[in-house]
């Protein structure tokens, strides 16, 4: 059977269930693909081939015995900032080069409980600091669509793994853009859940008030399937919501409702013409589906950059304080330049005499941004905007640009700051064959609606899936 690795989770599940394929075959197909492309694309930091095959064999047994765990036997790639018991976890930093966690993150635990076959740990910007995967201490990951280009970040490895069919699906995490932006640059689905919907326990902390783990998949249905597994209250994470977790997969194909979709001109300012064109096409498609558009004037996203920069750097300076090389890992001289720069700025913005002017001010503007969205969502169900201002940039673009990530993520930052949910939907290609993504932003806990409309859009754009990276 050809190209098992290019299956979606839903397709693979179906075939496993019907015993058309085995998990071992599926896992081998992914591992073969990984072996073929790892050197070219540098997607994984650690490949757990043996563990994956062992798990796949066990999964086959369980499948035989009629187990119907939701991810049983499905090969998944996990971003390297999720602590995995007994498997090296580096967050792509040399500080954690030899760190082997004696515990498991809640997300990976849930995935394992659901039967996942973990293929390995994917590359990322070191400490998730960036939007290019170029700041990884293990070298940049390259964009599967064009290896001269970046995959985006920080979940660049996970996005590339999914796009290049090295995995059936992947797990990423977003602080502000780290799921949606690489998904957009790699042409895959990236779902950023509401802050607090998915546990952060065991995820190397970056911006604690923002971090949201989520799926990067080949289809909206797959994203729903994974979210259904990983979402929910975690007694180990006090910021997780105790709201019940909906059956997200039941939102698939349920989109008879006609929605009001907001658009805001200032989300199109400075956006590349190629992206604007796809945005207009997307808008037309939604209109064709019967949805209506409402012009909004959202709070200018450029201020979100300032807010994000201050909050994120401040939290980073504190979150990275534990890395002193005493209990684990290497000492602080192993931090890369980007991490040091962020720690420095965050230390300054929290320091005596500057706290009010920076941190507190940013938290106040955060309040304004939240209220602005609250007002908007009284008028519309969702907001449509480009995920990023440009398609994937070329390698080296982030070099020496201390605000690179922030500028690349300008259109996702406001919603991240407000803790909202959002999804990247592959929506077109540039003339030179790079994917372009659009995002839908929804209120907190509106994932069912986002999944529903996302799926509706996906069905109308099946032709996009026919194109595959030429690798």
């Amino acid at each position: 059977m050809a190209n098992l690795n290019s299956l979606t989770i839903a397709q693979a599940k179906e075939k496993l269930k019907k015993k058309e394929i085995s998990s071992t075959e599926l896992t081998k197909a992914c591992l073969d693909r990984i072996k073929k492309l790892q050197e070219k694309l540098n997607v994984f930091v650690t490949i757990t081939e043996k563990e994956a095959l062992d798990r796949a064999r066990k999964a086959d047994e369980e499948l035989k015995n009629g187990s119907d765990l939701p991810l049983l036997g499905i090969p998944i790639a996990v971003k390297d900032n999720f602590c995995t018991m007994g498997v090296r976890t580096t967050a792509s930093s040399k500080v954690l080069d030899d760190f082997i966690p004696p515990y498991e993150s809640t997300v990976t635990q849930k995935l394992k409980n659901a039967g996942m076959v973990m293929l390995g740990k994917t590359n990322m910007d070191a400490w998730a600091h960036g939007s290019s995967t170029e700041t990884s201490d293990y070298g940049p990951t390259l964009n599967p669509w064009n290896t001269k280009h970046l995959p985006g970040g920080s979940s660049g490895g996970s996005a590339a793994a999914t796009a290049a069919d090295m995995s059936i699906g992947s797990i990423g995490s977003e602080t502000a853009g780290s799921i949606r932006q690489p998904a957009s640059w790699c042409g895959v689905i990236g779902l950023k859940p509401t802050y607090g919907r998915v546990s952060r326990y065991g995820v190397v902390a970056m911006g604690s008030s923002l971090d949201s783990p989520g799926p990067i998949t080949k289809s909206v249905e797959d994203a729903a399937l994974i979210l259904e597994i990983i979402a929910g209250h975690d007694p180990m994470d006090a910021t997780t919501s105790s709201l019940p977790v909906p059956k997200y997969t039941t939102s698939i194909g349920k989109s008879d409702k006609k929605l009001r979709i907001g658009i805001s001109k200032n989300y199109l300012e400075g956006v590349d013409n190629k992206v604007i064109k796809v945005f207009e096409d997307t808008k037309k498609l939604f209109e064709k589906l019967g949805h209506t558009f409402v012009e909004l004037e959202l709070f200018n996203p450029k201020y979100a950059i300032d807010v994000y920069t201050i909050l994120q750097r401040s939290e980073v300076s504190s979150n990275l304080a534990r890395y002193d090389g005493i209990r684990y890992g290497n000492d602080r001289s192993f931090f890369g330049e980007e991490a040091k720069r962020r720690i420095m700025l965050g230390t300054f913005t929290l320091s005596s005499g500057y706290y009010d002017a920076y941190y507190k001010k940013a938290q106040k503007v955060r309040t304004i941004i939240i209220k602005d969205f609250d007002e908007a969502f009284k008028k519309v169900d969702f907001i449509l905007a480009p995920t990023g201002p440009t398609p994937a940039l070329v390698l080296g673009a982030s070099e020496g640009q201390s605000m690179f990530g922030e500028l690349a993520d300008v259109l996702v930052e406001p919603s991240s700051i407000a803790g909202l949910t959002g999804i990247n939907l592959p929506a077109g290609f540039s003339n030179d064959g790079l994917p372009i993504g659009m995002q839908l932003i929804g209120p907190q806990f509106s994932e069912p609606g986002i999944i529903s409309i996302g799926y509706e859009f996906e069905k109308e754009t099946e032709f996009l899936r026919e194109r595959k990276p030429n690798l």
Partner: protein
Amino acid sequence: MKPVIGLEVHVELKTKSKMFCGCSADYFGQKPNTHTCPVCLGLPGALPVPNKTAIEWCVMLGMALNCNIPLFSKFDRKNYFYPDLAKGYQISQYDEPFCLAGNIKLDSGKIIGITRVHMEEDTGKLIHETVDEQEVTLIDFNRSGVPLVEIVTEPDFDNAKDVRDYLQKLQQIVRYLGISNADMEKGDMRLEPNISLSSDGKLPNYKVEVKNINSFRFVEKAIDYEIKRQTEILERKEAPVQETRGWNDVKQKTVSQRTKEEASDYRYFPEPDIPPLRWTNEILENFRKQIPELPNAIKDRFIKDYGISEYDAEIITREKESADFFEETVRIGEKENIKPKTIANYIINKKINAKEALPADLIKTIISSSTYASMDSSKIKKVVAQVLKENPQATEDFKTGKTQALQFLIGKTMAKLKEKIEAKVIIEEINKIIK
């Protein structure tokens, strides 16, 4: 020159689990690093979830210290680097602590203001050793994350004796609440006085903090030593340095303590991992109901209701167990027509261990030994003092070890008391006075 003294006291709570994780908080004497987990070891991605009981106890302590309990409170991160601090920050409370503006009334009648009572977590324990001829520090994280309450006073003290009285009262209250053993030797209670001298009645522009004090006696000594040391510096027209000093028990003095800890800009900010806390008046009222009657109140009640002396009441209420024991014994004794005063004297004079004795047994003993008159201990004390004063030669002889002199003094005392009383009680009193 007037001493200006304030006090920070840390009290470790005796909850079952630690402040932010499920590790057992009962770490004392355990093998090093056997009570840790990703949370209290500061491993990547581990998150704190606050212990409900610890927070309730902190609020109850605040209530017992007459504090205001704001309805809204939160945790903050206090950022600094030290090897015993696993996360590189301590979760503490900065500008919105659980309890504010309370007070404690001392025996002297003086009222000491409590600035705040807040909740935080303990650090790991450092052990300084020489290993392979190298000065090393070893770290045990069993203590890391154990709930700690910090009680901060206003700079209201001007002498060491009041400080000691305050500490005894605080220890008593904590024990009455049953929230900590407040055992100094085990480090359940840690004292940090800050001392400075004022020549003009204003707050001085420096303060010296003394750490590592593990007994109430040493806190008195350390304060007295600091007052003397700083007085001498000021008399030389020099300025005392603002610094942290440690109490050196062997040398009986404070010593400057320079650690490699970096400059103190703690960069506090609200802990993003822990949602804030909001009380309702109903919840607070419920906490208030759980607070047992406190020593000062019990003392007053015992004096009023049972007619025992203030001296006796003070001794009996020092520990909750003995106060409870006394009351229970009084209740049983009532049927036998035994006066509370008799019971109090008996408990004090015979040093009855309230944790072991049974009230009913005590009543039986009192009845069977009723050939001996039971007597108000303050009366015995008075008479003994009188006898010693009237017989200076015998007193001197006894001091130099002549036991015959003791017999003589006992005889004199008994004669004066005109009642039969155990010699042992008199000997104790004599010893007390002479020492």
